[in-house]
């Protein structure tokens, strides 16, 4: 691997610069534009389209939690952010992120299939919210689990965009040898997507709960006492999204043993997990209808 970077040259400043102008996912772009350009945008539609995109969700929460507002507690809810920032500001913020996405173009040589990444993120979000309900998290807090699931792999985006050829090699090797993606990322780039995710969450002031989800979803036993359930839920949702979801986000092969361990630690019944498959499929379909994109062949992409 001649091209791999030295371990001591972690390109964090490049990653930080990228974070400031992160493009939304290509899959939501058209609908984002359509909703934001409509003179009579419904707040429900705006909320919906943002909540289907990890980057847009992150950007909106970043703005509301930055020096912009002098808050004592982090805002992790989109509807709150929409009211505080106002529809106009949100629409313009979201559109600028979407425009970056159209400029970066789909035809770049990127290792990460962005549609698959989207499917995986959304599946994990849906699963996390559902699992939160299973462990009796009150309804008004379940949305935070959705956000945790939606954003958990956000750290992959800068790595994939900034180091496309290295990332392609990482992705090509990771699943075959059955080794951990994070390990490969660290070997080739000196930093892994959970570390980058942690950086994003920290920089965007998304709060420790979400930060832990991004940083610790591959080592959920390290989570602090306060967030341990939340991180485990997101970790389990991630695994379930890989098992049932139509995607291949390339993290690693599905691990039956890990699922059982996590499930037992959270006291979740096997039947609840079985139900997840249908829930995820339903929600993905609804999202696709909402985004006006065809479903169909997403299921058998490998």
């Amino acid at each position: 691997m001649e091209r791999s970077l030295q371990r001591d040259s972690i390109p964090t400043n490049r990653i930080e610069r990228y974070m400031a102008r992160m493009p939304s996912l290509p899959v939501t772009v058209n609908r984002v534009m359509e909703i934001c350009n409509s003179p009579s945008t419904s707040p429900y539609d705006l909320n919906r389209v943002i909540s289907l995109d990890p980057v847009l969700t992150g950007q909106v929460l970043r703005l509301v939690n930055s020096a912009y507002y002098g808050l004592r507690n982090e805002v992790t809810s989109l509807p709150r952010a929409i009211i505080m920032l106002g529809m106009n500001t949100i629409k313009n913020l979201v559109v600028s992120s979407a425009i970056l996405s159209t400029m970066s173009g789909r035809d770049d040589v990127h290792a990460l299939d962005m549609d698959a990444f989207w499917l995986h993120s959304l599946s994990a979000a849906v699963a996390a919210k559902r699992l939160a309900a299973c462990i009796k998290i009150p309804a008004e807090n379940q949305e935070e689990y959705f956000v945790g699931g939606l954003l958990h792999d956000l750290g992959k985006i800068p790595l994939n965009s900034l180091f496309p050829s290295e990332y392609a090699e990482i992705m090509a090797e990771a699943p075959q040898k059955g080794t951990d993606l994070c390990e490969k990322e660290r070997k080739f780039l000196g930093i892994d997507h959970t570390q980058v995710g942690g950086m994003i969450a920290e920089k965007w002031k998304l709060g420790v709960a979400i930060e832990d989800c991004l940083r610790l979803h591959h080592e959920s036993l390290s989570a602090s006492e306060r967030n341990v359930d939340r991180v485990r839920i997101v970790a389990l949702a991630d695994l379930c999204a890989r098992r049932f979801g139509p995607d291949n986000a390339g993290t690693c092969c599905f691990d039956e043993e890990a699922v059982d361990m996590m499930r037992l630690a959270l006291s979740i019944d096997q039947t609840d997990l079985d139900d997840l498959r249908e829930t995820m499929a339903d929600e993905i379909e609804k999202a696709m209808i909402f985004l006006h994109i065809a479903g169909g062949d997403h299921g058998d992409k490998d």
Partner: protein
Amino acid sequence: MGIRIKFWGVRGSIPSPGPDTVRYGGNTICLEARCGKADRLVIIDAGSGIRSLGNSLMAADVADGLREVDIFLTHTHWDHILGFPFFAPLYIPGMTVRIHGSSSYEENHLEKVIGGQFMYRYFPVRVEELASIIEYVELGEGAFDLGEGLLLRTKRLNHPVSCMGYRFECDGKSFATVFDMEPFQNLFEAEKSGSAFDERLAREGEETAAEQNRLVETFYAGADLIIHDAQYTRREYHTARKGWGHSAVEDVIEAAQGNRVKRLALIHHDPERTDDQIDELAGKFHTEGSSDEVMDVFFAREGMEITL
């Protein structure tokens, strides 16, 4: 000592000269405040009223050696910035003009918007050709020490663009600007009949809007003077002007009354509002007081001066 305030422009939306607006004035918003022993100059907004203020500064302060000017922009809508290129001190060598304004999701947006006015297609002088130096200071919510005993607190307001409320305190006196501002709305309630209606979102929206409105009130509570957007009457507001980013007189008075405000200046008069109509509103809403119990309520008039 204390704080003196002069209104150089009180109109909203667009300059509105003419026989119907001579008494309250047709210039858009610009305020001058002089604070404390140092007589520290603070300018709020650069609507068309800033042209006359600039001329007055040239005749006195600049001749006496003033070389630094601080302008606090509430937001970047046209009516609040259009006078800026006609602010005479910009053309004085050695002058530094500091523009403070709300941060946005965009980097350096103040410079883009304000500096962007000096483009040949809008205005014949380019920014590079100005004799003065313009500095931009972007603010979030918080408290800031401006020196010479002058303190500033900021609070974001609800308007269709990032908009900042300012509260200045000096020598135990304080005034707050609350424009342009529409009370925060529960956007998720408006569509109760719609198919998308979601009770959980509506409840969260209700809490958020109420909390933000409470925070705005806390922000101005106890001030000796607040200068508040009151472009509409309640009746006008409820006929197709919701979401435009402005407040109704009745609502403003009601909110201020419960918050130990001593004097309330209503500002951002609608461009269509004639002097007679404002007099009529004043007849209805004006109260004289200036104590915690009886608030002094009046419609701001161009040229008016107030000492706190």
